[in-house]
């Protein structure tokens, strides 16, 4: 499911980014030309008003009844004769500090007369334009997101269906394994209770236990998120003893010696989680240790430590889901991933390192 969400998000982002970029470029040009237009309009207005006003003030160079809303300044041969002094420019129209200036020259025999009309530039049309663009952008964005979402869902539907089918299949498969495994394990228990023991039964038992472990790991990875946790006090020492007892045949087959130095230590956790944690660490240690070697187990001051001879080449990737360093050994590459998940869940500190030819894994329960 998360893979599906990821691809949906990626699709959405790419789509939105490219479309917005395109629309943005278009809008930029539109904005530029619209602003240009607003300027031109105001320039033209000032110029027209100036031209209209000129005949009035022609003779006295005074504009006593200037009814227009523009201000006028007049220069005669470069000398100020009317109005406020303005900074001249050799263009016909220009803008300076938010004020529009327009100039009209009348060449005369005694020298040129320059009329300059000026007016504060009215920014409100530009503001309005910006507001309009912003508003339409919001609508476009909403529209785009909806379209992208619908498209994404449409494109991803086949993928989603496949994933769903696969999930259902795995769920049904694990579910169907439930009862047969129960029957095998309970009946082995019955045989032991009746003191019927033989090598064959022992082999069946160890294989059934392995099957059970694989089954539990699989269900853990697939269903951990909606499993109801039953938080109780568990003594790690008891669990370790129990788990070692469970793996006995496996350990004996590899001729591995287990050295335990365990103190009593009680943690509050779901029993099944602690079982998974210890089980995986223990079976990994036994699995990856060479034959005729020793596996050390200890609990001291709330730190569980397990070490076996060997080396992990890629320490960074070792806790990743489905990562398997040694493809010769069986497995799914889930063991340490599960351990990591449980540690994260409860806030235990997990430490994995190579030390003098040993792999040392410690879990700090706190």
């Amino acid at each position, binding site marked *: 499911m998360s893979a599906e969400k990821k691809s949906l998000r990626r699709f959405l982002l790419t789509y939105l980014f490219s479309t917005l970029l395109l629309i943005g470029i278009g809008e930029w040009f539109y904005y530029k030309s619209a602003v240009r237009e607003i300027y031109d309009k105001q320039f033209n207005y000032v110029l027209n008003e100036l031209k209209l006003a000129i005949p009035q003030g022609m003779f006295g160079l005074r504009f006593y009844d200037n009814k227009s809303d523009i201000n006028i300044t007049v220069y005669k041969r470069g000398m100020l004769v009317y109005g406020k002094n303005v900074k001249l420019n050799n263009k016909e129209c220009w803008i300076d500090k938010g004020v529009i200036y327009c100039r009209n020259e009348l060449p005369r025999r005694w020298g040129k007369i320059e009329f300059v009309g000026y007016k504060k530039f009215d920014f409100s049309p530009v503001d309005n334009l910006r507001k309009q663009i912003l508003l339409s952008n919001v609508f476009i964005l909403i529209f785009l997101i909806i379209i992208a979402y619908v498209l994404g869902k449409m494109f991803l539907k086949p993928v989603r269906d496949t994933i769903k089918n696969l999930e259902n299949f795995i769920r049904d498969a694990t*579910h169907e394994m*439930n009862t047969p*495994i129960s*029957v095998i*394990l*309970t*009946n082995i228990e*019955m045989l032991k209770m009746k003191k019927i023991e033989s090598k064959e039964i022992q082999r069946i038992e160890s294989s059934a236990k392995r099957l059970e472990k694989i089954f539990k790991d699989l269900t853990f990875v*697939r269903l951990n998120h909606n*499993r109801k946790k039953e938080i109780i006090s568990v003594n790690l020492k008891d669990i370790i003893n129990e788990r070692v007892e469970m793996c006995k045949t496996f350990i004996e087959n590899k001729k591995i010696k287990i050295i335990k130095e365990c103190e009593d230590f009680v943690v509050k956790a779901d029993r099944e989680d602690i079982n998974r944690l210890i089980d995986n660490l223990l079976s990994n240690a036994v699995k990856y240790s060479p034959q005729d070697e020793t596996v050390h187990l200890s609990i001291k001051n709330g730190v569980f430590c397990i070490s076996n001879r060997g080396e992990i080449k890629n320490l960074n990737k070792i806790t990743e889901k489905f990562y398997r360093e040694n493809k010769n050994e069986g497995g799914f590459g889930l063991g340490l991933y599960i351990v990591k998940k449980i540690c994260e869940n409860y806030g235990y500190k997990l430490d994995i390192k190579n030390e003098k030819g040993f792999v040392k894994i410690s879990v700090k329960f706190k």
Partner: protein
Amino acid sequence: MKRKILIVEDDVSLNETVKEFLEFNGFETVSVCEGDSAVNIAYEENFDVILLDVKLPGMKGFDVAKEIRSFSDTPIIFITSLDGEKDVEKGFLSGGDDYIRKPFSLKELKLRIDAVLRRLYSNREKVDLGDGFEFDVKNNELLKDNKPVHLKTKVAKLLNLFIKHRGEVLSKDKIFAEIYNYEETPNEASLRTFVKTLRNILGNDKIQTIKDIGYKFVG
């Protein structure tokens, strides 16, 4: 007297294994494979504990539990699978007392059954009845100075019922429903005899008669 357990599990092999295990451990068992027959048999006979698989053909385990709850308060332990955990809450809501996840070990099953039974008697292994009398919860026996006292089946059932509902008034109907099976005809005169027997053993003041209603155990 042996504790009686109803096993409701549709997988025949598992059903048989659990049955055999519980009988091996001194329980009396009845096993069925279907939901509706479970409801019927729980109606006809009295059980101490019901083991109920959640996934049954036909009727769902939770519905079976609900139906059983409508006429009986026998403890129910659900057998669920690891992947049905969301259902656990639903299970408790429908009247379950505990649950056990498949695949389980028989040892664990036994522990859960014992725990549920103990809970019926306020979590005690033995209930002190005074004058050297004790009731052993695990074996469902009356002890006098640690020696078992023999009781007839119906009297033992009555005592068991009284201890479970200490200090509560028990109506005659309730007592009849608990100590008689479906096919037996309840009889007020014999109930009086059973009560008298118990009074003779434990002392007259232990069982009060509530006129026209029933009895109250105050031991």
